């Protein structure tokens, strides 16, 4: 039940643009994260032997390399989103708050 200025904001291009930009930022990353994690889990569930394979001549197994890589990947996903939010989303939010913020 939006009225007055807030109704105007909800119908503005700036707001629609922000919502679309945010959706574009969050959903692909969320899906990539889910796929990466569940691939790891499904290998453990259905083919644990795959992770027992050695990398090269040493002791290090594929499972341990994938596990460490997944930890790093998780951090990179959060870093990527925060970077995108700074660059693309924050300026849009600030502009909207400047124009409509006092109606909150």
């Amino acid at each position, binding site marked *: 039940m939006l009225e007055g200025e807030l109704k105007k904001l909800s119908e503005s291009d700036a707001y629609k643009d922000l919502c679309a930009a945010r959706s574009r930022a969050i959903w692909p990353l969320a899906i990539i994260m889910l796929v990466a994690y569940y691939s790891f889990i499904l290998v453990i569930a*259905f083919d644990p032997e795959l992770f027992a394979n050695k990398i090269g001549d040493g002791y290090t197994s594929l499972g341990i390399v994938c596990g460490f890589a997944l930890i790093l990947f998780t951090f990179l996903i*959060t870093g990527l989103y925060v970077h995108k939010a700074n660059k693309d989303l*924050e300026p849009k939010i600030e502009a909207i708050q400047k124009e409509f913020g006092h109606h909150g």
Partner: protein
Amino acid sequence: MDNMNLTAVTMFGIFVVFTLGITYWAAKRVTGTKNFYSAGGNITGFQNGLAIAGDYMSAASFLGISGLVFAAGFDGLIYSIGFLVGWPIILLLIAEPLRNLGKYTFADVASYRLRQTPTRILAAFGSLTTVILYLIAQMVGSGKLIQVLFGLEYNYAVLIVGVLMMIYVTFGGMIATTWVQIIKACLLIFGATLLAFLVLWHFNFSMEGLFGAAIEHHSKGESIMAPGGLVSDPISAISLGLALMFGTAGLPHILMRFFTVPDAKQANRSVLYATGFIGYFYILTFIIGFGAIAFLIGNPEFMEDGKLIGGNNMAAIQLSSALGGDLLLGFISAVAFATILAVVSGLTLAGASAISHDLYASVIKKGEADEKAELKMSRLATLGLGVLAIVLGIMFEKQNVAYMVGLAFAIAASANFPILFLGMYWRKLTTRGAVIGGWAGLLTAIVLVILGPIVWVDVLHFDKAVFPYKYPALFSMTVAFVGIWFFSITDKSVNAKLEHEKFDAQHLRAQTGIGAEKAAKH
């Protein structure tokens, strides 16, 4: 042994005196509910990142995961990763809208456009069961740990933890709890880094060298480098993965931390820092676990009849003694104790706010509670939960409590997360759907854990479990989501229509932060 006690007790004493000093400083600032629940919203993103990491890196993670790696190698990594992957989900889907819509508890957000009374009761119940299960596990763990480390009797150990925690939270509220958490996070990260560094130093910083020595010592040999028996079938693997990933996004003491920062921007910064600290910490626990295999197994000073003295959970502690003598042992012991103390404080504060903010102020007083009365109620609730934690900690001394953190995650994933997530993103959610589906998810999680192998067989000693899987989340989350969906779309009441209409205003505030709760002025 006397030496060890002295170092550990001295270091722990310094921590207690210092944190009580902080509590004294904080107590003068806790004049209203805003400072009590959310530290006035004046914590920075970096500080909150450390505090979140502190809340999350419990003694169960530090000692439990390094112990699991010590026992089974690779399988410990499955847990670490599960505990970590929930964080991008929180960042991407939860943190910013949560901060923009809520004030003190996640129930503020879940009930934003739904009917207050039934939604708040469900959310408060979900919070309290999660908090109490977690608390029991921490209290029992701490009692046993302190018994081994300081030679103090179990009941006294539980009592000391309970009383210190009540002092921090009652007087210092969220301000003291946050700073205790930050200090403890720094100590724990420093301690774990030191241990991992000493392990790697022995092998000239070669992981291959460490792995080689571990394989040579461990009775399971090379199989410690690959998935073992922890997750034995695909359903369990997926179910455990769901509970860990989405349970994190439904833990009340973690969600509450997002209200301590000034705005949504700082909320997303805090997740970035928290993920960095937590990920780094789990890599360290993995190295520590492998180090424990390499240094402790076969050493009669630490092993008895082929078992680690004090149990597998003592792997990190015993390793510190092997690598750094009594001094390092004392330091790591004190850090472990500080960790427990900080985590139970955060849990108790989250539980107290569910009682005073959600049940007392919103349900009983219908949002008309006087601020002084609410603050008083939150302090009473803290004392009540503290006493309950001590009593339960003593009652459960001889019980197997390992399943309790797992159950807490399952409930968080099956009740708290679905109503929060759908409340934020799904226009058609109605009170009827949220309440029926939420309760159904919560009860399914509890019943399946009781009927499953961990309680039915291990605790109640029946021969065969009624429900064959250890982890219920796959089933209980499905029940919750399907229940919420079905009872929302079939809800044709006038109220349901109003709730759909309120979605636009909620979405606007979630997206832009216009109307969001502001930080208190200093």
